[in-house]
């Protein structure tokens, strides 16, 4: 398939955009990464995702696929010669889908709440986040069955869903001066996170924490209406 046959519309800081990129890398599929300009939405984006107007969008041929986890499943189902992202057993698939949904429904919203949270509110959100991460740490034990990833020997669906949050998790840890991934409370996830970030399919796509912190500063400044720092 020619490179221009597969396009990903996105932006480098977005954890959701990372997901299809990791999936395509796992499948060794070449693609064109079209980055949206921060603060505006391209015609192509508005045409390809008229309902939500959000990134990521995968454009395969000329057909758009939207919603990051739906895109990952699509990639898994189309490029069957590469390693499988979801297992073949229906029960295992249901478990993987459950935990990926958990990341989206519980972790991401809590992480967003950390932004600007202080005092009691911050304490409550940190507690929520820690609780969720502890549950995922336990899930890792069951899903990995002694292997390096949730998916087993190689990166799988939950790895992609959860791993994509690591960049922003680390930014939150630095900015809010909290420890979320902790050797005491989530020992398995701490080690898994290092393995995930070092993986060939991930390392060029995972943004550096420092770059994300800079990006976050700009975001916060824009949100407050002040001019961004140079």
């Amino acid at each position, binding site marked *: 398939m020619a490179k221009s046959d597969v396009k990903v519309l996105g932006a480098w800081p977005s954890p959701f955009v990372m997901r299809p990129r990791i999936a395509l890398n796992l499948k060794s599929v070449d693609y064109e990464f079209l980055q949206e300009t921060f603060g505006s939405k391209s015609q192509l984006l508005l045409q390809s995702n008229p309902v939500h107007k959000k990134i990521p969008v995968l454009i395969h041929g000329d057909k758009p696929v939207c*919603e990051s986890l*739906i895109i990952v*499943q699509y990639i898994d189902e189309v490029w069957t010669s590469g390693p499988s992202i979801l297992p073949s057993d229906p*029960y295992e698939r249901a478990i993987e889908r459950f935990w990926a*949904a958990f990341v989206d429904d519980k972790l991401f919203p809590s992480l967003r709440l950390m932004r600007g949270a202080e005092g009691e509110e911050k304490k409550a959100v940190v507690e929520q986040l820690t609780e969720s991460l502890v549950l995922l740490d336990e899930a890792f034990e069951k899903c990995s069955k002694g292997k390096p990833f949730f998916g087993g020997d190689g990166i799988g669906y939950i790895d992609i869903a959860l791993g994509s949050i690591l960049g922003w998790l680390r930014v939150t840890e630095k900015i809010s001066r909290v420890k979320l991934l902790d050797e005491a409370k989530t020992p398995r996830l701490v080690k898994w996170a290092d393995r995930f970030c070092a993986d060939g399919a991930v390392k060029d796509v995972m943004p550096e924490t420092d770059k994300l912190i800079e990006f976050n500063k700009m975001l916060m400044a824009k949100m407050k209406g002040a001019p961004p720092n140079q």
Partner: protein
Amino acid sequence: MSNEVVLLDFWASMFGMRIRIALAEKGVKYEHREEDLRNKSDLLLKMNPIHKKIPVLIHNGKPVCESLIIVEYIDEVWKDKCPLLPSDPYQRAQARFWADFVDKKVYEVFKGVWLMWAKKGEEHEAAKKEFFEIFKILEGELGDKPYFGGETFGFVDISFITFYSWFHAYETFGKFSIEAECPKIIAWVKRCMQKESVAKTLPDQKKILEYAVQLRKRFGLE
């Protein structure tokens, strides 16, 4: 191989209804257990310790949670009859997209109307506007097809039709008519209701209205 299927459910839950329809479409025999949501059973708390919610499908002792995940599971296990998802990956992605839309947006505007029932004037109008914006998007997606799935009843139809049982309640409290604004949706509803799996699953709308009234009193919204 034994095939024990138990469904932990609540009669008025649109999410639980999805499972009953899917199992009926596949002709799967199962044990239906009604939960009292104010007094959840030990079994429910054991089978869904994370969310403690229904529906939960227990297949040979192993729990599956989250309604759309359960429907996909049912489709994959009982794959020889009545496919609920298309076989083409692009069509499957579209089906998942629209079912996800129903989960995110329809449920959201339903909640919006619920909360706005007691309010009047501008806020009521705003909630009503949002409600119909979402319904019109769905109407657009349905187009002239008999079902969201095309010629056959499928995943998106299952995800949305269960909300029909609550239409009368919402129309009563929201003081609007869904048929007047979205006739194609109602036409689609009537088509779906001709299917035995749907007609036998969806509870009577008047019963849902009675239940909704009770709930509102309980939450002090009356």
